[in-house]
């Protein structure tokens, strides 16, 4: 498990919950723009956006962790992360700040909590605790037979 220390995290908000993403995973944070839905794709894929001429898929973290989509408003952002050499956007309700954690504890080991399988640990901050996301797990194991060659 990662210890605390100098690693920096971006704190994002989704509904009432806050998540932390390691700053090294993040390419950029952009404002919400027109998203073109991709019909018949995996359910948590919200669609694709045009990021300076590149087609970048955008996923809904809400759908991923199994809660209803939160409404889009002025603070909504797309966090663009790198996953297997591809840029992928994650919609969040807001981006709050950059921080680092004194101490990181292992995630709660229960299957009740929604989306606990995507958490890497729990970071302690002055005003509470924040779950740290594991981007690889959040974006991976999507159920798409990637490269599987379904016949």
């Amino acid at each position, binding site marked *: 498990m990662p210890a605390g220390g100098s690693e920096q995290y971006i704190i994002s908000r989704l509904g009432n919950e806050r998540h932390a993403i390691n700053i090294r995973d993040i390419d950029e944070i952009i404002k919400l723009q*027109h998203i*073109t*839905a*991709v*019909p*018949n*794709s*995996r359910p948590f*894929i919200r*669609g*694709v*956006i*045009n990021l300076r*001429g*590149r*087609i*970048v*898929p955008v996923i809904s973290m809400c759908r991923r962790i199994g809660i209803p989509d939160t409404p889009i408003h002025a603070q909504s952002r797309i966090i663009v992360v790198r*996953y*297997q050499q*591809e840029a*992928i956007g994650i919609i969040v309700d807001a981006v709050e700040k950059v921080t680092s954690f004194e101490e990181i504890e292992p995630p709660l080991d229960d299957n009740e909590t929604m989306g606990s399988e995507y958490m890497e640990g729990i970071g302690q901050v002055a005003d509470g605790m924040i779950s740290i996301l594991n981007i690889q797990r959040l*974006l991976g194991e*999507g159920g*798409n*037979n*990637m*490269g*599987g*060659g*379904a*016949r």
Partner: protein
Amino acid sequence: MNDFYNSEYLGVFLDEMDEQLQCLDESLLLLENAGCHGDTIQKIFRAAHTLKGSSAVMGFKQLNRLTHQMENVFELIRGGQLEVESTLLNILFECVDFIKQLRCSILTGVMEEEDVSVLMNRLEAIKNSAVPHPVEQVTKPQAPALHIVFNSTQRGKIAAALTDGYEVMAIHVHLAEEESMKYVRAKLVEINLTEHGEIAVCYPELELIEKDNLFSGTVVYILITKQVEHDIIQSLKQISQIDSIHIEYITNLNLDTFVEGKEIPEIERNKDNIRDKAKAITVLPESKMQVSRTVRVDVERLENLLNLVGELIIDNTRLHSIRSRLSEQFRNNSDINDLNDIAGHLNTVVSDLQEGMMKTRMIPIEHLFGRFPRMMRDLAQKSNKEIELHIEGKETELDRTLIEEISDPLIHILRNSADHGLELPEERSAMGKPRKGTIVLRASHQGNMIIITVADDGRGIDVGKVKETALRKGFVTAAEIEQMTEKELVLLIFRSGVSTAQTVTDLSGRGVGMDIVKSHIEKLNGVIDIATTPNEGTVFTIKVPLTLAIIRSLLIKLGTSTYAVPLINVIEIFRLRTEDIFTVQGREVCKFRNQVLPLVRMHRKLQVQTEGDHDQNPLYVVIIGLADQRVCLVVDQTIGNQEIVIKSLGHYIGNVPYLAGATILGDGNVAHILDVRYIIREAGSHYETHLPKANDSEIMDSQSEKYITFSLAEMDFAIPVRKIKEIVPVQEIHMLAAASSHVLGMINLRGLLFPLYDLKSRLGMLDNGCSSSSRILICEVSGHEIGLLVDAVSKVCLLSQAHLEPAPEHLLINSELLEAIYKENQQFIHLLNLEKALKLEPKRKEVG
């Protein structure tokens, strides 16, 4: 070793190497077939020379030695001192192969060079064999007419310079006859030459010129330089009173001949020679020019440029939409008129630029075909056959990425044709065929496809033997064989099992690597076909799509989203009244110009809501086509034509049904590109050609379709023949853990696994077990290949739409399962809706 390793020069060097090797291969073949021609020799010589030079620069010492030796041999051939015969050619080919291997190992990062001494020795032997018959054949115009004797110091210097990769040239300068101040001119030449390099020696010594009555007017300078001869000639031409210039290269080989001391040839003959050579020289610089007209560019850079052009096109489109809006707003503003002009011009430039960029991606297939004559030669030699390879359509252009991809399959096919297709010369003449077997390799464009055929006039594929092997190896059962058509049997050679049957000598791997061929072609979305006639030959036909990055497309609106359809697939757009839509066999079709075409409502496929009016009438319909198939798409609106850049949705999203990719529109939004291929394949109807004068009943007749009827618990059922792949006897069923209750298990059919569905349990019938008449129908449902267990297969028959009645929904528990009921005379047949019955999700597109 050398700084150039890992440098960008290495790439350039390897590219050049490849090009020169190809050139060597081609020219050597020409030499072998057409005999010794001056041009060919020149070409070979130049290729070897370039290789020598660049290998020295890159520090590949062994390679340099080898090419140098090769050059020496070519020099002898050029000088007519060596006969071109097969031993010599074989050694030369081996040298080329060795260099090819070396190139490959450098490519994989192995920098150590293998020892070349074996080849060197063989070349040396050849060289030595040449010396005995020297220049006595005066008739050869190219005979070296050097007449200088080097002393040992000079010789050492020249030899050292040669080893260091310098050029040593003997420059013959013939001064004008009437020139009185020959010494001054000669001195001028000398000064001029020292700018290019070092003069080792000149003959006659300049000081003697004035006194020498015999002086012919020709001075020979031996120059050690790194310049190319073209530059030297250019610079010498600036000196007046020079009649002609001729340059000869001194190599380690002819160096010896100088030392041995040759008599100065008679002046008169020498003069003639110089005239001849002066002519020859004029050709040389030109052809060098031609080489330098091509620029080698990293493919990646090219791709980047192409992407930029793509961006430019998008912006250009955006600019145009703003321009038209502005011109509406400010009609008579002079600035707007200027804007219009500029935008118009920009449009032309951008489209020219795009076309130009596209052309850089396209390369003639010659680049690929050029490798084959050599391969054929080797194959012919190895198998003791006489083979003639005809290449047609080598100028056919295709995307450079495709060239690499089809190379392997083509090599396999050609090998097969040569190895197994063609007979031995004796066999051939015994059968009354010409001794020499012919293989024709042909490439051509057909629409947006490239068609490549490989045809041989050999023995053809022995279907009987294929059958035998497949049976013996247990890939098919006897019963399956019985049901297979001739064509299917031939296609068995693509089975990896059959193809790896190396122990079978008769078949002798007729199909070694054929599975590779198939998988490669499939990867390219291509098609492969075989036509074979016993004793007349076999024709392989490969079709691959000509995919391009930028296409013209039709933009359509579905709900709120915009989609693009490649314009090449758009046949026609028309408005359809809802009264013209019929339902045939559970599918919607429409009548258009006496054709009955399947109707696809894209909204449902793409899960989009129709905007506004739900019962739009008439509907907008776009007819799309691929090969001979046509399908009508119902869309909300057509927007217009636009150039689009195809972009992939990326690995993360993967392949999505109905979508071929995405593009960015003028407004910056992303639009999806419809996958015409997928839609048509799914709709799966053939283009029905002109119907006889339409009256309704006839249309109905044309709407009848072939069905396979079968029985389940003594009731009759039918499914369309086009969905059936195969009918096989019941075989071992492998139970599947945690399978749904309607799945009996998996069956293994010639190495492929198919799920086996139990229709009876699905339809709520009692299981009455399997009997001898039970069969498994292999069919395709929503893109899945599955097996259905039925009690007996009755027949194939034509069921007319006229006798179809919709299933009485109110009587059924689950009306979805039945599509319709066919009732004619005593027959009562249930038409199943397999998609619904088996609850299969549409299959995702094949990956890759």
